């Protein structure tokens, strides 16, 4: 029975080790939430969401233009990113079994590994330089480039999960291949794809690096894609490195707003994913 006692000891030790690892992993997560709530909650006010930033020393004001700017940038990024990302994923799943599919898959993998600051540089070269100005468009292109590879791979996986007998059922009704792909296959995979869209949107909303020299910043409301645009992340960056207490307070509050937005997106996608599994 010597071996048994030893095995029991190892078993308990490993269980304790795994439990401790979980606790340590939770520390940063909990502390991020705690710190943001503690420091940022006081800065939350109606005007934070609705007002423009004020100059140093002037009380009040908010980051309304930055919140709107983030939504504007992400929305514009979706206009470019969703059709290309989802289209690529559909291609990979339906026709991606040859060398071309392998090449596309390889490229998306490489693209998803490119650091986001590099994506920003690329967008700078592609959009800012020819247009001679920073713009929401350039920021959106950078964010779209970040979204495309993850969307493409997620869509491919979701479409591959669609049973082939549904595809055959549609084709046997005399439905052309392209319509089968769009109206039956993509439709069936839709809830999974929506999950992927929400995740990529929340990731794009949290990006700072690719926006620094593409959409830049703006102290005013902007609804034009060819003008510099404020974003929550860049605004947080500018406020956080400033020496003014009021601005630093606003940085905490804005960070809390951003975290809540991103968490909401993630939770919604989790909820959708779970209800889909239950439905199937």
């Amino acid at each position, binding site marked *: 029975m010597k071996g048994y006692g030893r095995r029991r000891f190892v078993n308990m030790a490993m269980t304790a080790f795994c439990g401790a690892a979980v606790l340590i992993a939770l520390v940063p997560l909990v502390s991020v939430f705690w710190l943001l709530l503690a420091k940022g909650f006081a800065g939350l006010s109606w005007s934070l969401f609705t007002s423009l930033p004020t100059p140093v020393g002037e009380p009040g004001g908010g980051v309304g233009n930055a919140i709107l700017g983030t939504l504007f940038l992400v929305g514009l990024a979706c206009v470019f990113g969703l059709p290309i990302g989802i289209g690529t994923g559909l291609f990979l799943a339906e026709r991606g*079994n040859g060398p071309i599919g392998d090449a596309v898959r390889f490229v998306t993998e490489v693209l998803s590994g490119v650091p986001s600051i590099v994506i920003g540089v690329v967008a700078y070269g592609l959009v800012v330089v020819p247009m001679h100005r920073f713009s929401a468009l350039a920021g959106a292109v950078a964010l779209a480039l970040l979204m495309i590879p993850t969307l493409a791979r997620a869509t491919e996986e979701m479409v591959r999960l669609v*049973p082939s*007998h*549904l595809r*055959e*059922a*549609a*084709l*046997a*009704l*005399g*439905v*052309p291949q392209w*319509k*089968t792909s769009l*109206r*039956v296959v993509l*439709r*069936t995979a*839709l809830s999974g794809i929506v999950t992927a869209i929400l995740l990529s949107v929340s990731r794009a909303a949290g990006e700072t690096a690719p926006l620094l020299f593409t959409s830049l910043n703006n102290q005013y409301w902007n609804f034009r894609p060819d003008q510099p645009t404020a974003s929550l992340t860049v605004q947080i960056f500018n406020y956080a490195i400033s020496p003014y207490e009021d601005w630093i307070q606003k940085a905490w509050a804005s960070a809390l707003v951003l975290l809540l937005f991103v968490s909401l997106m993630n939770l919604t996608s989790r909820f959708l994913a779970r209800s889909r599994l239950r439905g*199937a």
Partner: protein
Amino acid sequence: MQQPQSQISVQSLNAFFRSTRALKDVNVQVLPRSVLAVIGPSGCGKSTFLRCLNRMHELIPGATATGQVLIDGQDVYSSNVDPVMVRRRVGMVFQRPNPFPTMSIFDNAAAGLRLNGVRNSYAEQVEKSLRQSALWDEVKDRLHAAATSLSGGQQQRLCIARALAVEPEVLLMDEPASALDPIATARIEELIRELRERYTIVIVTHNMQQAARVSDWTAFFYMGELVECAPTEKIFTNPKEQRTEDYVTGKFG
């Protein structure tokens, strides 16, 4: 109402999966408004034969076919025929019920019309096809419920309704009852006998009793060859070929 008139004539049909020959020089005639049962052991080419009739076979990567399949005298393999149009004239029902899971019962029955761009209200056509597939009375009060809420046998009858809604001339059935319980199977068989009044039907089955019950003619396939095709009664009581007799009496297969 115009009665669909059709006759299938298969002439020296060969089917391949890359270099493997799955069907060898098959010749079959099917009379209008009759039921042809296709029997044979697993892997003998029954399903391949069926899928050649509406050009579904070639959708499998590497699959090809040669020869002629005349439906109403027109060769569906002729170079100026669009396989998509062939599939609208030749409906198909699969082994496992496969309604579209994202659609309601109504939308499933209307799917063929809607996806093929027919624009009008589908209600009349949906009711007609659901009545033909003997499902109407069971679902008329919950047409907008999910198709997946139906039982397996109901789902299969919904798939039959979906195929009938586009008004095909020929109906192909690939072991339509093999995934169903005996009661649902009996309903499907009853349905086949009713549909025979209007459609030409080719049914692949593993179940020889089923072939005997529902068909007028029976074709016995073995190793990709059509061994014998004759009136069903003759196949089961007095077959010409020894191999047919061995199979239908259960000596192999």
